[in-house]
């Protein structure tokens, strides 16, 4: 407890550095404990995956909010987005260049709102049609113009693509990054820590104070990180043991060979 109190003093007097150290230890533990979650979150396949969708132009006489409310309740509908008029006019302006001003001019004179309906992933064609029919019944065929269903697009990356390789080993890079960051913070904390420990050793009958202060501090941060991760359904695995070993090693690497001195 004494050493932990001394660590808290060190923490307060070197707040930014200590916060970065705490963050790096937490990051290190999390990147090992939540390896699968990180892989899942940063997976390129998932990021590029898009759900099927179709656009529809609906007369502004119809209440869009009510359509949106009803459509979202429908099975197979993932999301319903209403686009504002500004973006619609921009799109019509763009089309006018391609198709000629006569047709588009007529469309522009009508007041329409654009709605984007995103469907669930893997929805069957039959069900897609059912959704579209339901929308037509809701709005009425005269007030509705529907576009075709657009299928999801997947970006195909080569196996040796740098981005793919980077993402594949992201968990490893994260662990390495946090290890280096933690080591750097400890290296920068050595001077104030040694000064504090020197004073304690000179006036109290204690030895290896710097090592004990740093070890108790790092161990506490790592323990809290493990508990938090455990609460978030992480499991204690072999890599976690390696993290514990690294946390134990850090004070030894920086303090073992050095004679305790006071530096101004």
């Amino acid at each position, binding site marked *: 407890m004494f050493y932990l109190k001394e660590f808290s003093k060190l923490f307060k007097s070197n707040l930014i550095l200590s916060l970065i150290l705490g963050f790096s230890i937490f990051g290190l533990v999390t990147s090992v404990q939540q390896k699968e979650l990180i892989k899942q979150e940063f997976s390129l396949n998932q990021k590029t995956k898009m759900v099927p969708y179709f656009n529809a132009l609906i007369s502004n006489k119809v209440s869009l909010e009510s359509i949106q409310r009803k459509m979202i309740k429908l099975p197979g509908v993932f999301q319903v987005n209403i686009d504002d008029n500004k973006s619609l006019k921009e799109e019509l302006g763009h089309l006018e260049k391609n198709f000629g001003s006569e047709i588009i001019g007529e469309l522009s004179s009508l007041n329409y709102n654009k709605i984007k309906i995103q469907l669930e992933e893997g929805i069957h064609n039959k069900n897609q049609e059912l959704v579209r029919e339901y929308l037509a019944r809701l709005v009425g065929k005269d007030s509705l113009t529907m576009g075709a269903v657009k299928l999801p697009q997947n970006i195909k990356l080569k196996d040796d693509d740098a981005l793919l390789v980077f993402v594949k080993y992201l968990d490893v890079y994260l662990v390495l990054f946090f290890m280096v960051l933690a080591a750097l913070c400890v290296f920068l904390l050595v001077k104030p820590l040694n*000064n504090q420990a020197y004073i304690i050793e000179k006036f109290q*009958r204690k030895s290896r104070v710097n090592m004990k202060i740093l070890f108790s501090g790092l161990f506490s941060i790592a323990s809290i990180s493990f508990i938090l991760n455990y609460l978030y359904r992480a499991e204690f695995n072999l890599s976690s043991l390696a993290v514990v070993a690294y946390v134990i090693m850090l004070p030894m690497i920086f303090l073992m060979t050095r004679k305790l001195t006071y530096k101004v």
Partner: protein
Amino acid sequence: MDLKLEVQMKDVFHSLNRNRKSSGFKDLASQYLYHLDDVSVSFGNIKALQSVTLTINPGEILFITGKSGAGKSTLLNMLAGDLRPDKGRIFLPDRNKIFASQVFQDLKLLSEQTCEQNLWYAYDDKLYKTKNEFHEDMMELVKVLGIKNFLSNRMCDVNGGMKQKVALVRSLLARPNVLLADEPTCSLDKDSSVKLFEVLNFYNVKRKLTVVWASHNRDLVKQFPGKIVHLENGKLIYSGHACFI
């Protein structure tokens, strides 16, 4: 409480002064605490200490005098165990029993912390039964040295003399059996220096504290009862009672 301690200290100081003048120091020493045998230390080309032979007995007050660069601090650092001699040997018969506390020349106080916080660094739960006991000791000392009103001030906000007193109190609160003080009065006036010596003398008598006091001011330390070791360019020139120097 402080007045009582002050009166007690003065009595001890005067009686000891008389006793020492009549009987000498050898009575106090049964076995030596440190013995330096032909010790030399160099820093590059600079010879900080050259063939110094010296014995320090328990319960002794020893003044190390000499000009700046004479080797006083080197000698103290060696006694503190921070420095090893290049040549010669240091004998410590009761190495495990010795606990030397230091008043550093640069004080080594944590400037962002208050005077009281700095003093609490001397609190050792092996020595004090309760924190209250430590606090009582601390309050007694700060009253005697007149730093009670500055306890809540940050170290960087108090003057040099005050810092020096805080450093001395911190060393004494560690309950050492050897006190190594490097220029403990360099920022103090004569009255404060005498007062500080009275405190050390009190501890020397009551708690058998061995005091090794390094000072460049030979005239000041000559007034106090104790043994003087005079250094010049790292060489021991004189070792004996102050009155014979």
